[in-house]
């Protein structure tokens, strides 16, 4: 295959990527878009095997290694993506993004090792960029994975002098980057890689709670730019196009997500440096709460005219989407007006709840977005909050300086009664006490969301 044909195939793959992103922006075409993207990527990958670069012959050198490595990657990636629980998807995306960044950094390192002194300054700069950002994306994504998987604390990790350590690491990273460009050597490049990995960790550690998805999106955009720079190093136009597309759309997406949560991007990334430490809630935790039985909850629901169900991460964890639908159907039969109030970032990612409830075939019309449902809370008799906390926490309005301050919330406090189905009194993902739990009109039903809902359904049927 000659270079022209190879480049034209690359161009068509690039066009497919554009159409893929376009398709993914609309519900009706999203699935087709994704499949188109997959076809584009496959076409681009297959084409490499049939193109001999100048001075080389087909088949590719090390063909056995290449094919085995691809087969191994498929054997790891596909089952992971197939088997992952809906609840664990965000961290899997973070992990996939991280390995992509790592791959780009490795590609640049290998190319640099091979080129040695013959590399032009432009190529060296692109290499440095690829290694730096790729490593940040890799280690940063691993930390977000650990946070979402709850293998480490989900709260912002802030340590004394943290901001100076971060600043020093950043300075060191930039200095070693300059060193690589001037001196050209393997040692400076490896130091750059090590410092970038460290910076990625330090960069993500102070980000906590609901802001983690925004960081995943940002790191995704980073990886895109890394791939684009890698494309320059390798003189591969398709990589430049694909990487830039992802970098640009990822940046916009990050901003949209931040807006949906009422955050400035800057505040998200650097909020942990400025936020005051939480006032200890030790004293308040001993305050009494009103906990009820499934029968109490069933009675409240039975005599309500309007019920708004607010799902959160607890619903996802308990896989209670089918049970909640059963409850909603039952209430609808009894003439109760039922709606779901979906916070844009309920769960661990935007759209998480929509995906989950759609799996249980909840009618799309019953899902109301925050702006629609908030004005209706004063006319709502019961707000049933299932495993959500931060997205209904009034602290977002009343406590300046708390990590979620300024985030729009669902105004469940306006409803006649508030019912929380919770596993325990443990605070939500952001780690903040919820005053609403102590409100006199709040009833708590402790336990796994699915078990609790099943009992409530039983009690409701018996009424």
């Amino acid at each position: 295959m000659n270079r022209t044909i190879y480049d034209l195939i690359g161009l068509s793959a690039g066009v497919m990527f554009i159409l893929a992103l376009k398709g993914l922006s609309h519900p009706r075409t999203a699935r087709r878009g994704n499949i188109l993207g997959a076809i584009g990527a496959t076409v681009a990958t297959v084409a490499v095997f049939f193109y001999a670069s100048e001075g080389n012959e087909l088949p590719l050198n090390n063909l056995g290694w290449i094919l085995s490595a691809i087969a191994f990657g498929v054997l790891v990636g596909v089952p992971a993506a197939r088997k992952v629980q809906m609840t664990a998807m965000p961290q899997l995306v973070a992990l996939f993004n991280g390995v992509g960044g790592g791959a780009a950094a490795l590609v640049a390192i290998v190319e640099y090792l091979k080129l040695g002194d013959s590399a032009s300054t432009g190529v060296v700069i692109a290499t440095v960029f690829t290694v730096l950002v790729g490593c940040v994306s890799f280690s940063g994504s691993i930390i977000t994975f650990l946070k979402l998987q709850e293998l480490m604390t989900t709260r912002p990790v802030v340590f004394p002098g943290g901001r100076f350590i971060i600043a020093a690491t950043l300075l060191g990273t930039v200095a070693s980057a300059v060193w690589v460009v001037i001196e050209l050597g393997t040692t400076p490049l490896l130091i750059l890689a090590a410092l970038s990995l460290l910076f990625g960790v330090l960069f993500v550690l102070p980000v906590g709670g609901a802001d983690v998805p925004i960081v995943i999106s940002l790191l995704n955009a980073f990886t895109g730019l890394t791939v684009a720079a890698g494309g320059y190093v390798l003189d591969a136009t398709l990589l430049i196009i694909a990487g830039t597309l992802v970098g640009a759309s990822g940046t916009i997406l990050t901003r949209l997500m931040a807006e949906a949560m009422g955050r400035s991007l800057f505040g998200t990334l650097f909020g942990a440096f400025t936020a005051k430490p939480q006032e200890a809630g030790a004293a308040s935790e001993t305050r009494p709460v009103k906990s009820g039985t499934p029968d109490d909850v069933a009675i409240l629901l039975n005599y309500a005219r309007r019920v708004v169900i607010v799902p959160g991460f607890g619903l996802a964890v308990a896989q209670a989407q089918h049970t909640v639908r059963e409850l909603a159907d039952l209430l609808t039969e009894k003439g109760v007006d039922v709606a779901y109030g979906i916070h844009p970032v309920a769960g661990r990612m935007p759209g998480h709840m929509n995906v989950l409830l759609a799996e249980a075939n909840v009618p799309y019309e019953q899902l109301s977005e925050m702006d629609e449902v908030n004005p209706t809370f004063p006319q709502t008799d019961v707000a049933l909050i299932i495993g959500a906390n931060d997205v209904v926490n009034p602290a977002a309005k009343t406590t300046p300086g708390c990590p979620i301050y300024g985030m729009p919330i669902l105004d469940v406090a306006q409803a006649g009664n508030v019912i929380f189905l919770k596993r325990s009194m443990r605070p939500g993902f952001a780690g903040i006490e919820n005053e609403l739990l102590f409100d006199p009109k709040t009833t708590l039903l402790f336990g796994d969301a699915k078990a609790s809902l099943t009992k409530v359904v039983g009690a409701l049927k018996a009424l």
Partner: protein
Amino acid sequence: MDLIAIITIFVLAVFVGFEVVSKVSSTLHTPLMSGANAIHGVILVGAIIVADHSETNLELGLSVVAIVLATINMVGGFVVTDRMLEMFKGKSGGRANQNSGDKK
């Protein structure tokens, strides 16, 4: 390829990237992120190219790792995005039987 051509491609791709996702509902934020994530898995092409160029064992070893990682990113990314988007399939009909199939 000369620098100006590359900068041209870069700038135009930035605008296309901005344009295609500028108005998207929050429901689709996650699948869109995941799909874009899969697309940058195309670094696999780069990993294969450097594996082909590799002369030393070190270079080959690193490229093989890069290929594995890139493949996981690309293939896993598209599969997981497709799973997220199952909610949008067959909105008009046939939902009941799909549901029974999904539950296993």
